[in-house]
C-alpha cells in the first residue's frame, strides 16, 4: 500500500502567548524567529501511516507545501520517525495561501506522485484550524473521504477505519484511494525517533518541486469563496465577581454561574 502523509509546519503552538504576533501587512501570523514544528494532528497522521508500515509494509511518503528552507526540519523529523521519502513543494507564498488553495496544490502534487492509496492529513492545522484540506483534496482527486479518523486497520480487503464521533466511533470500510483526516488518540501518539534513525534520515530521498511543475485541476477556482480580511489577537480580560449572601446562597449562585459558562 502506498501512503502519502501531508505535513504542515507551523509555529510551535506551545509557545507562550506573548510570542504570538500578526504581521499587519500580510495579516498572517509572524513566523520569523519562532520555532517551527509539525502541526499537531499531522504528527498523529504520520504515526497512523507508520503503524501501517510496521504492520503491513506500507510505503510512506510525506508531502509538504512551504518555503523549502523553512520545512526542512519537519521533513527530517518525519524521515527520522520512519517515513521512506519526502516531497517538498517549494512555495515561498505557502504560509499566505488559503486552505482551498493549498488543497489544490497538494492534490496536483499527489497526482504527480502517481501511486497513492491512502492520503492522510491532520484533521485540522494547529494555526488556522480550517478543517478543509482533507475534504477538498478528496474532491479534487475523486477519492473517498473520512474525517476524524483515529486508526486504520488494513487487512486483505478494503481498509477499515475508526472515525471518532461524540459518544464512540464508527467503523467505516473505505474504498481506495481515500483521503483520511486524522485526529489524536491513545493509539496514534507520535513515536520518538531513534538516535540511529535520526542519523539515517540524512540519507533518505527528498525531492523538491516547484508549484510551476504541477498541473492543478481547473475544475474549481481555489481562490474563490473565502477572503481573509483581517486577523485579530483576542483581548483577554478577566473580571472578579464576589458572590454575597449566606453560604448556601453563594453555592447556588456559583453553580448557576458555572452552568452559564457551560463549565458544569
Amino acid at each position, binding site marked *: 500500500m502506498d501512503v502519502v502523509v501531508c505535513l504542515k509546519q507551523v509555529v510551535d503552538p506551545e509557545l507562550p502567548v506573548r510570542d504570538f504576533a500578526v504581521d499587519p501587512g500580510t495579516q498572517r501570523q509572524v513566523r520569523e524567529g519562532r520555532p517551527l514544528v509539525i502541526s499537531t494532528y499531522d504528527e498523529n497522521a504520520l504515526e497512523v501511516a507508520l503503524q501501517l508500515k510496521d504492520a503491513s509494509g506500507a510505503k510512506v511518503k510525506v508531502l509538504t507545501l512551504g518555503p523549502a528552507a523553512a520545512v526542512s*526540519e519537519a521533513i*527530517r523529523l518525519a524521515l527520522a520517525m520512519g517515513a521512506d521519502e519526502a516531497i517538498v513543494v517549494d512555495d515561498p507564498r505557502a504560509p499566505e495561501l488559503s486552505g482551498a488553495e493549498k488543497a489544490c496544490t497538494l492534490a496536483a502534487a499527489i497526482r504527480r506522485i502517481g501511486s497513492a492509496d491512502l492520503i492522510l492529513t491532520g484533521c485540522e492545522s494547529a494555526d488556522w484550524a480550517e478543517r478543509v484540506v482533507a475534504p477538498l483534496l478528496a474532491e479534487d482527486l475523486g477519492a473517498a473521504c473520512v474525517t476524524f479518523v483515529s486508526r486504520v486497520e488494513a487487512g486483505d480487503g478494503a481498509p477499515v477505519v475508526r472515525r471518532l464521533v461524540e459518544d464512540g466511533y464508527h467503523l467505516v470500510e473505505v474504498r481506495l484511494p481515500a483521503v483520511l483526516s486524522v485526529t489524536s488518540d491513545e493509539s496514534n501518539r507520535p513515536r*520518538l*525517533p531513534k*538516535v*540511529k534513525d*535520526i542519523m539515517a534520515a540524512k540519507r533518505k530521498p527528498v525531492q523538491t518541486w516547484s508549484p510551476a511543475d504541477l498541473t492543478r485541476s481547473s475544475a474549481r477556482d481555489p481562490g474563490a469563496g473565502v477572503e481573509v480580511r483581517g486577523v485579530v489577537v483576542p483581548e483577554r480580560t478577566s473580571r472578579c465577581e464576589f458572590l454575597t449572601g449566606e453560604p448556601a446562597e453563594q453555592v447556588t449562585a456559583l453553580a448557576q454561574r458555572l452552568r452559564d459558562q457551560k463549565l458544569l
Partner: protein
Amino acid sequence: MAVQLSDEHRMIQAMVREFATRELLPIAADLDQHSRFPREAVERAAELGLMGMTVPEDYGGAGMEPLAYVVAQEELARACAGFQTIVTVNNSLVCEPILRWGSEAQKQRYLPELASGRKLGCYCLTEPSSGSDAMSLRTTAVLRDGEWRLSGTKIFVTNGAEADLCLVYARSEPEAGARGLSAFLVEKPFPGASVGKIEKKLGIRCSSTTEIVLDDCRVPEGNLLGERGQGGRIALATLDGGRIGIAAQALGIARACLEETAAYVQQRQQFGRPIGEFQAVRWALADMATRLEAARLLTYRAAALRGQGLPCTGEAAMAKLFASETAMWAAHKAVQLFGGYGYTQDYPVERYFRDAKITEIYEGTSEIQRLVISRHLLARS
C-alpha cells in the same frame, strides 16, 4: 574554539528532551523516594539508542560522537539525575573502554548486549582504601591454569545491584601503582563474584551503589581487557570520557534548578509583587544562567576535542570541575529562592540539591580535578 550543534544534534536533543519529559519527569520524585531502579525507562532508553550512543552501528550502537552524547545526557539529567547516572556509566565507563581496548571477540560479545539494554554494565575501580588514590588499589589477579583468579572488594559501584557485566581493575603485575594493574571483563554469574552491601544515599537514589565482592572469582583468560599491565592507562583514559558525562549531568541539574526557579519567582508574590521583580532575585537568576552557559561551553569543548580524537584530559577535568560546582551552587541558590517551600519535598529543588552534590565527588573529587588541571598546566609550561 567555537562549538556548534548540528541539525542532528538538535534533533537528538529534542528527542531526548521529549523522552525525558514524557517518561522520566513524572516518576523522578517517586524513584528518588523509594530508591527504585527504573527498569522500564532504561529499556525504553535502550530502544531509542541511548544505552550505547557512541558505539558504532556495527556493534549495535547509535554511532554518535561525544558532543551528541553530551547533549543527550544533559536532557536526561535535567529530568532525573539518577537515571542519567545509570546511563552514563553504561556508555562512558563500560562501552567506551571495550570499544577502545577490547578484542574483536570481546566487542562482538559484549557491545551489542550493552547497547541494546539486554545487559547493563558497571565499573569497579574504587576500593575501601583507595578512592582518590585509585592506582593504589589492592584487589589481586593471578593467572593460574589458563584462568584469572580475582580477589578483593570493590565499593561504591554504580549499577552494582543490576549490572550483568563488571569492568574490574586488579593488581596482576609485581610493579607498584598504575603499571601493576590490569582490567577484566567479569560477568556477574562467574563463580566468586557477588553483590555486597547496598549503600543508602543522599541523592541519585534510583541508581544503585554497591559493593562487588570478588572471592577467588574465576575469569577466563580471554576476558582480560587490553594488555596485562595496561589497566591503569585504561582506567585513567576512560575517566576522561566519564568526566565529560558527569559534566553533562551537572549541566542538566543546574538547568533544572534555573528553569524551576525562573518559573517560581514569577509566580510567588511577596510585598505585593512577584519576588522575581526584586533585583536581588533577578541577579541570582542572571548568575545562574551565566555560569550554566559557561559550564556548557567548557563541556561542549571537551566533548568536541574528544570527538576529534585529540587529548582532552585537562579540558575534561575543567568541564567536570566547573559544571559540578555550578550545579551545586545553582541548587543552593534554587533552594534559597524557593524559601521554606524549597526545603520541602513538595518542590523538586531539594532533590536537585541532594543530587547535585555527587557530581563534585565521583569520577574524581573537585580536589582531584584541580590536581589534574594544575598538573597539566605545570607540565606544559
